């Protein structure tokens, strides 16, 4: 393992997390489409939406992470991929936009018709996006993305046997992951009917995804033989084996209703496929372009790795906090009405008149040092002066305004009562 490999490892981890976390979101959309009609279907839909709700925005940032790290650390490969695979990536983008918009709008929808239309957009785009992304991976894996600006075929690169196969497999995996996650959520919330339903769906799609994956190897045999031979007898062999074992283990865990463990083994099954692909392809990133040749200069690789490390140290605990909040439902000491500060303490530290004079001084410093003076350090002090102007000005202006607002509400005919 070299320095130039490390960002790629991070990208693959990001891709695996995106596939698992966003994949489950996409799959939830898939199940809302197949839920059918009637009250039972509505419960299923509501359950699917509520399970996604608080974390869904966080999940797309994995894709952003994959994209930005790739173009920073392997810019030539990124340019080639983004230009040749412009069509599937644009389709995935349209899917993500429509899905996000439909989801945001669903929160405000009231009528059954409105909801039904938005649900349809949400569900179809949930299928469109993973298919397009999966087929783009298929184009890269089967060596159909040459180095260069749109040097490969715009359509036959991803609408190839491998591309279509991986697109379908991606949709199936999303459905499978979602079914496992949704069954787990239903069990946690104590909703046995929904749990039974998603448990059955998880078992069925688990078997289907396994069959598709096996059929996929046959497609690779004919369409991307190099990849196939690495996967079944070369060093990438652990990938498919681990994936198959984890997949089988997940089925058994779901059957026994051990959902929390099943979440992890299902994620492992997906991650092993990505790892296997990477091992089968390395050291080539694209045909004729090794990872080493594609990598950015040393200084950039170090900088991006430091940024990733710092980001991980900051973000994983935060993400843990969010997940624990969502999974546990609440923290201790829920909503207690706040104790108002004592009136004496509520009085501002200094008077509004002083704040006004301070703001004036800040403005004078700002004009003098930012506008008239020329040196950088003078500009820095000038900016600080303007900051003082804004903050002190706010402290000078607002208390009077808020008092005036209270006074205004006492006037007869004020709409204040309606506001309550």
């Amino acid at each position: 393992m070299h320095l130039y490999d490390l960002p790629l490892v991070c990208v693959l981890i990001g891709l695996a997390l995106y596939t698992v976390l966003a994949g489950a979101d996409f799959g939830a959309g898939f199940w809302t489409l197949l839920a059918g009609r009637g009250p039972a279907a509505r419960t299923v839909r509501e359950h699917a939406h509520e399970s996604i709700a608080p974390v869904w925005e966080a999940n797309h940032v994995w894709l952003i992470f994959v994209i930005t790290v790739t173009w920073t650390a392997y810019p030539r490969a990124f340019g080639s991929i983004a230009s040749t695979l412009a069509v599937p990536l644009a389709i995935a983008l349209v899917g993500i936009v429509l899905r996000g918009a439909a989801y945001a709008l669903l929160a405000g929808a009231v009528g059954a018709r409105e909801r039904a239309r938005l649900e349809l957009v949400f569900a179809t785009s949930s299928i469109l996006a993973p298919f397009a992304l999966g087929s783009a991976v298929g184009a890269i894996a089967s060596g159909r993305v040459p180095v260069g600006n749109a040097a490969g075929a715009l359509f036959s690169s991803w609408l190839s046997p491998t591309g279509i196969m991986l697109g379908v497999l991606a949709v199936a995996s999303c459905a499978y992951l979602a079914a496992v996650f949704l069954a787990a959520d239903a069990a946690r919330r104590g909703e046995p009917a929904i749990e039974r339903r998603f448990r059955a769906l998880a078992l069925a799609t688990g078997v289907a995804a396994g069959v598709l994956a096996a059929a996929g190897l046959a497609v690779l045999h004919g369409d991307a033989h190099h990849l196939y031979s690495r996967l079944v007898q070369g060093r990438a062999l652990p990938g498919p084996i681990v994936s198959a074992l984890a997949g089988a283990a997940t089925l058994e865990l779901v059957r026994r209703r051990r959902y929390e463990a099943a979440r992890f083994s299902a994620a492992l099954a997906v991650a092993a496929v990505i790892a296997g692909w990477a091992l089968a392809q390395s050291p080539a990133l694209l045909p004729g372009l090794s990872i080493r040749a594609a990598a950015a200069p040393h200084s950039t690789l170090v900088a991006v790795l430091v940024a990733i490390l710092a980001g991980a140290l900051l973000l994983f605990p935060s993400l843990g906090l969010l997940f624990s909040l969502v999974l546990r439902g609440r923290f201790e000491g829920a909503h207690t009405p706040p104790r108002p500060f004592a009136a004496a303490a509520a009085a501002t530290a200094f008077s509004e008149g002083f704040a006004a004079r301070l703001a004036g001084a800040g403005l004078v410093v700002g004009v003098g040092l930012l506008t008239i003076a020329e040196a950088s350090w003078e500009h820095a002090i000038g900016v600080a002066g303007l900051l003082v102007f804004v903050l002190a000005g706010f402290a000078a202006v607002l208390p009077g305004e808020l008092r005036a607002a209270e006074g205004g509400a006492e006037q007869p005919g004020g709409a204040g009562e309606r506001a309550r």
Partner: protein
Amino acid sequence: MAVVHQAYLLQARQMQALSFAVHIPLVCFGIAFPAMVLFVEWLHLRTGDELYRTLARRWTRVMVALFAVGVITGTVLSFEMGLLWPQFTSTFGSVFGLGFAIEGFSFFAEAIFLGIYVYGWDRLSPRAHLLSGVPVVLAGFTGSLMVIAVNAWMNHPSGFRLSGGHVVHVHPVAALFGNSFLWPELLHMYVAGYIVVGFLVAGAYALGALRGRFGRYERTALAIPLAVAALASPVQVLVGDWAARDVARDQPVKLAAIEGLGPTTRGADEHLLGWYRDGRVRYGIGIPKLLSLLAFHNPDATVQGLEAVPESERPPVNVVRIAFQLMVAIGTALALLGALHLYRCARRLPLPVSRWFMRAVVLAGPASVVALISGWVVTEVGRQPWVVYHVMRTSEAVTGAGGIPVGYATLAALYAAVAVGVAWILRRLARAPLSEPEPRAEVI
């Protein structure tokens, strides 16, 4: 990689501009709105007054809805970096990419803590809840710092050398953060965020006031954003002037396009209005020597004209010039409105002073968005024909893939639909009852 011929370069640029123009007002809400919401929540904790809690919760819903749309439009922009400009990313990704990578983390933190903040309204202690919003405000700042660092680098590139079409001696940290262009541009955008959000939110309540809804709740909801915008808009005049002097020093061609200055001139005049043709501004109002004075603090300074560079290296002059004049005109008007408001506060004159004042506040919101987009037109169109100033042309950066018009049309249709959707959901949120909101709409 060889340079390709792209017949739809202009459409690619327009598509990028459309994506950007849709995204940037949402960015303003990411920058400024969390701070305002937290301030109102702090008022609630401080006074125990339920009105502030109601206001903070209602604004939170708007904030989350706009953030969700901003996630979408931001994802579009990050895709377009590759879909439209693969040669740019593949040549210079190692220099500027770090900024976007860190921005990704910043955005991640924003999403996580926004999730905690929204989900934690009734689940965290009041103090912990207030604190959980602080990272959202900070991430709004670091996010814009990173993106502006990349844009400032494109306008004033450094931190690398070119050898045979490849970058060598790359110093990404110096390229992004050791750049004199960064600070005025960052501050200009950051202050713009507060102006846009301040006037848009205040404008919504001013509109309500004109229609007779002006109780204590509305007065409070108007007073806070209006105070923010009134203080920020005079500051913006000074910051903008600072940014313009940097442009004068480092991007003389952009300055010449902004001013419509053909020949290089000593003691150059400033022109208001008018139309640039054949090397000079026609039908404009000339003010002697003002340009030299403003740009270089010396009425007799020499200002480089457009004719100093070949025609192929000049940006479209009238687009840049009109956008600049629009930005300055609106910015000045907003600063005057802000000063008027501060004067009113100082004299303790209660709102509404007059219907005309309220109408001006209503108008100030959309006007500030126009000024915001005009400012970006000046920066970005004024940078043409370069994507990396004096290093790489936009035509060398564009994709060789076909189908740009199809993508452009699709995106335009999609954004039109999203715009209708956003308007619709904001109306819904505005009509929702003011008492405790239902949890379903909370967790968008």
